[in-house]
């Protein structure tokens, strides 16, 4: 165990490209590697990975371990856990990072149990303890009402899964040099017990929430699917994506794919207009990266006013049409 060295990140590939979380993990991982004086490596698993390893180097990796195998084309728990187990046992990293993504949520815990180590999911900050040199893993608990800092003392690697947009990528530098090392997956097809038979895309029209610079988000107080439509003209004017807290999704007013929060999308727009939503910790976990929150809520005591920069205490049904008209005049 004392021999474990280096910070390793598990990259993600979506539709032939490095997913944004990969650049974020490389950015955060670079800082940790610097503090420890150790190297930063990335693992890329997939089928037909090609030049993506070079991109990981440009984004900060010193080494990239490429595990290219047809059985890794789509994510399955058994194949990915087995491939990562093999990589970790060969390389013995000190720290191993994942994204808290659909892939990371499934892969990281199962791998941690297989390796006999612990993992902290959904970390919003990572640091190195100056004394013990252990990884300090900060994560929201109780739906974001509190923050907890965990360490893993007795086992290696120290594992953490990092929330989207919690870490900043480094500037891309194509002149950086690094080493690309292939590792055989060594998978037994019979050991892969589940099979992805279909992938269904539920694309939302317009701008993706994760990429949007302006978001108009409705909450429980909007009241119905019909009233949710009141947000559309404003969103269109501001080139904004429409989001929702969990109750409108659970009530079927809007698609679950636009849910923002602890168990939904994680967003980081410049402007976040929160309409008739209370601002529960669970919701705020999804939009803590928003730079300017505007709150419109009938209840002056609503938590959202503690998070907002500007607010109106009032009925959104009266505020939103008048606001939309004025915005139209100003930006039109």
């Amino acid at each position, binding site marked *: 165990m004392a021999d474990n060295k280096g910070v390793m990140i598990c990259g993600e590939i*979506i539709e032939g490209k490095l997913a944004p979380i990969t650049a974020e993990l490389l950015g955060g991982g670079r800082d940790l590697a610097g503090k420890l004086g150790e190297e930063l490596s990335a693992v890329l698993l997939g089928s037909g990975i090609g030049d993506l390893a070079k991109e990981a180097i440009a984004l900060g990796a010193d080494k990239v371990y490429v595990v290219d195998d047809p059985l890794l084309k789509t994510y399955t*728990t058994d194949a990915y856990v087995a491939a990562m187990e093999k990589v970790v046992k060969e390389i013995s990293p000190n720290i191993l990072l994942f994204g808290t993504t*659909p892939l990371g*949520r*499934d892969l990281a*815990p*199962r791998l*941690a*149990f297989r390796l006999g180590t*612990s993992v902290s*999911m*959904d970390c919003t900050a990572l640091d190195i303890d100056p004394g013990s040199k252990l990884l300090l893993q900060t*994560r*929201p*608990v*109780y*739906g974001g*009402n*509190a*923050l*907890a*800092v*965990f*360490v*893993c003392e007795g086992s290696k690697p120290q594992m953490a899964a990092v929330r989207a947009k919690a870490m900043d990528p480094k500037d891309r530098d194509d002149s950086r040099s690094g080493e690309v090392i292939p590792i055989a997956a060594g998978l037994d097809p019979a050991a892969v*017990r*589940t*099979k*992805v038979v279909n*992938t*269904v*895309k*539920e*694309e939302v029209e317009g701008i993706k929430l994760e990429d949007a610079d302006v978001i108009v988000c409705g909450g429980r107080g909007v009241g119905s699917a019909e009233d949710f439509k009141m947000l559309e003209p404003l969103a269109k004017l*501001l080139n904004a994506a429409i989001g929702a807290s969990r109750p409108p999704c*659970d009530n079927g007013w809007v698609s*679950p794919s636009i849910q923002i929060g*602890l*168990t939904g999308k994680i967003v980081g727009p410049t402007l976040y207009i929160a309409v008739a939503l209370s601002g*529960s910790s*669970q919701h705020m976990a999804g939009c803590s990266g928003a730079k*300017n929150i*505007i709150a419109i809520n009938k209840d002056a005591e609503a*938590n959202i*006013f*503690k*998070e*907002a*920069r*500007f*607010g*109106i205490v*009032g*009925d959104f049904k009266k*505020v*939103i049409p*008048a*606001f939309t008209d004025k915005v139209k005049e*100003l*930006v039109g």
Partner: protein
Amino acid sequence: MPNMIVCVKQIADPEAPPGSFKVDEASKKVNPAAGVSQVVSPFDEQAIEAALRIKDAQGGKITAISLGSNFVMDVIKKPLSMGADELVLLQDPAFEGGDSHSTAYALAMAIKKVGEFDLIFCGRQAADWDAGQVSSGIAEILGIPSVTPVKKVELDGNKVTVERIITDGYDVIEGTTPMLVSVSNELGEPRYPKLKGIMAAAKKEPIVWSAADIGAEPAKCGAAGARAKLEKLFVPVKEGVCEIIEGESPEEAAVALALKLREVRLI
């Protein structure tokens, strides 16, 4: 007919106002706030619902298992009142101070003692510590496949078809029993217990097992079996500097807000 197991946890109501939430930084514990009720963790209710939908369609037996202390019977019997057949409570001072590792170990040992199972259902994460890994741990210890997070589960003979949530959609995944699934809120609302179910649950005695009853090694239970160490627990400070835009009417306030946002160049 399928044998199904659902793992559930009793927690403080996560919908309680954030202001009622307090921690003791010295002991690194959450202080139980006055007036906040205990509930079954919401994702676990959805896990019960997923199992009940299969039972509705084809029959079968559902055993709910919960590890904890200070159980409130009216609360922890909710799986029974919703329609589960048995309730097993894992209660032992040896289980206290555990983390995801020791919890998954105890639940896996209890599941082994229950014996036959085709499907195990868990919530995607408990709405208190939000650790999100006990389910994967149980599956790893039992050596069975697991899928997380899922929004639909279907069982046809020994063939399991699940819909696993991914970014902007879902994967349709097939496998065979035994399998473990962790259920997310996209499954849909859990049913309300009917009066008949509540009456039946009131009469039903839960089975209580200790660490020794399930053959759990003391070194793997509770604090002794924990691998993650909590260094610090605190409530983040919020600045709370919201500028409230006023007006004679909501419409006037709306106009003033638009002008303000223009002034600070946000629109």
